[in-house]
């Protein structure tokens, strides 16, 4: 039973991690926690649902269409909501993301209704493979593991070895210095929002396949992903992945032995990390000089 608990914990943890990466990408460039992240993923998943059910297109067309929409949505929110803010503080920008969250949820309720919908991926929940005796893994979990691993490797290379990745890191560390060095900071922000929205949409589709699709379905996964990001370190991509895994396993063990305590595990993790090691387990803490 414990073997199965670990497999289930790691698979949901990997999904938290992928979504946590979306949170981290925006944080890495602007130090803003995007509270609309869940709802951006929700809207993009609804777009996939719409393409599948209204237009009747094959899944992969809907999948790619939703990812394309997610990029546009991320850029749109950055350009139309955050950029016009006058003399913005980080807190002010966070409040704007909260407003965007409510707007997107209202929009989804108006367009697709509040009733739950079924959203299925080609990676079936029902198709299982025996790893060891009594321990099975399903296609959904395998797909999540592969997605998390590919993303982690891609992003590691991207932030370390590409000009755009380095520009994003530079923008986060000192926006003014980045401007002086010729980095087009606005473009970096737009790219970060578009890219983060795309990764969020990927995770959103996996979460919808695991439960149901409705305008509020990403509220709880966002909190878990945020906890995973805080645990691993809001600046560290590998940290978020490891944080997601730890959180998934921890939640499953607590849920198995003390189910009533499971919902607060993520919050305890956030509080404990902020008290003991605010930069997270794997992120280096940068002191900013005045």
């Amino acid at each position, binding site marked *: *039973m414990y073997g*199965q*608990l670990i497999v*289930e*914990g790691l698979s*949901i943890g990997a999904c938290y991690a992928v979504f946590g990466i979306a949170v981290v990408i925006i944080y890495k460039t602007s130090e803003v926690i995007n509270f609309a992240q869940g709802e951006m993923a929700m809207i993009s998943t609804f777009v996939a649902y719409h393409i599948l059910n209204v237009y009747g297109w094959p899944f992969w067309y809907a999948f790619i269409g939703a990812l394309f929409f997610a990029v546009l949505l991320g850029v749109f929110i950055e350009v139309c909501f955050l950029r016009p803010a006058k003399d913005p503080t980080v807190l002010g920008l966070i409040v704007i993301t909260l407003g965007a969250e409510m707007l997107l*949820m*209202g929009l989804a*309720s108006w367009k697709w*209704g*509040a*009733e*739950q*919908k*079924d959203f*299925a991926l080609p990676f079936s*929940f*029902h198709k*299982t493979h025996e790893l060891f005796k009594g321990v*099975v893994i*399903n296609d*959904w979990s395998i797909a999540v593991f592969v997605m998390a691993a590919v993303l982690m490797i891609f992003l590691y290379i991207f932030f370390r070895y590409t000009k755009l990745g380095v520009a994003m890191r530079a923008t986060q560390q000192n926006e003014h210095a980045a401007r002086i060095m010729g980095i087009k900071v606005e473009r970096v922000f737009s790219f970060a929002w578009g890219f983060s929205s795309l990764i969020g949409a990927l995770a959103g589709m996996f*979460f919808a396949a*695991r*439960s*149901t699709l*409705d*305008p*509020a*379905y990403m*509220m*709880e*996964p966002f909190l*878990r992903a945020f906890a995973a990001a805080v645990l691993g370190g809001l600046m560290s991509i590998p940290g978020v992945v490891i944080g997601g895994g730890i959180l*998934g396993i921890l*939640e*499953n*063990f*607590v*849920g*198995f032995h003390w*189910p*009533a305590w*499971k*919902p607060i595990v993520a919050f305890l993790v956030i509080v404990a990390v902020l008290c003991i090691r605010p930069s997270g387990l794997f992120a280096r803490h940068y002191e900013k000089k005045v």
Partner: protein
Amino acid sequence: MKGKGRFWAVLFTISSLVLWTGIGLCGAPGFDDKEIRIAAWGPQTGPAAPWGSVARAPAVLAAMINEQGGIHGRKLKHFVRDDQYNPAQTKVVVKELVEKEGIFSFVCGTGSAGGLAVKDYLAQNKVIWVGPATSVKEYVFPVQPYLFSVYPLYEDEGSILTKYVIEKLGIKEIGVVYQNDPYGKNGLDGVRQRLDHLKMKAVAEIPVEATEKDLSSHVLKLKSAGAKAVLMWVHPTTGVVLVKTAATIGYKPQWVASNTLSDFELMNKISGGLWEGIITGAFMLPPDSDDPRVVKYREAAKKYAPEERFGVFFMAGIMFTEPLVEALKRVGKNLSTEAVLKALNSMKNFQGVGPKLTWSPDQHQGSDSIQIWKCGPGGKTILLQDWTVNELAHWKKK
């Protein structure tokens, strides 16, 4: 100076009109010779919005009645307000309806926390409330003179369903998953009531929060405890996550659920067909039934609310309103709050599309029975057991 004087005169006139209008409606009896004003609140937006159709459905019943000339010459006017499933908002919309619109009676009213927040306010203003769209013991124990409950208690449902599982299905290893709130705990109390009576114990009792999306540990706990039947009092999404998760690890118990998960068309669709074979309690006739009363409502819904899906929640809104309409008919032309209270208090074995209802001045819990359904292929309803009473019910022995 002249201009200033005119300004103050206009302001005074407008203020007087506003005050007069407000005072005029505040405390109004909620009816006149032409209409009777009824109202319902419910979440029309936000996470609980799927239950919002309950509050909209009485408009269909009102339209049907109005088409036939109303009740003793008076038309029914139905108001709907969105409380977003937020008790603070429930207070605001109910106050607005009572003091600005002048409501004779509320019907439905979704959400136990919201209902508890306005129950005393409605009683203080002598506004009748028939058929709250949830089962809360505090609504009716002790008796609230203006509040009449239609919904069977989850405790009774739990007891009846457990009896069915043990006696009809022959399953003794029972697990329970319950939402960690009064709804879930009342269901759990019912299971325990029946098991205590039979000197048995559940193999697992697992609490769950409505927002949880990963329930692998819960399902693994049920499996390791050897539960062969799992009874659940949970949110529809939680129910779907439970059956999906169980399917991934090859765990196949007999799932049995509360009536809140009996919208088979919806549940079967959102679970990807996994709802088939699941047994639930039910507090009214199936929406796809051929019963003439249901057919009549289904046709009316097509005519007056074609945009609505005629599912369990929508039809429930009509069912909760039926007894008020019956009381208004019995009262006759001389309408008053006292006369309708008298008619409701003397209602005996009234049956619309829900269970038989009996109220008396000392007992405002109207129903004590449920049906038992099974989800058939394509979300069709299979009736397993007709109206069944919980013979162990504590409240009837008082």
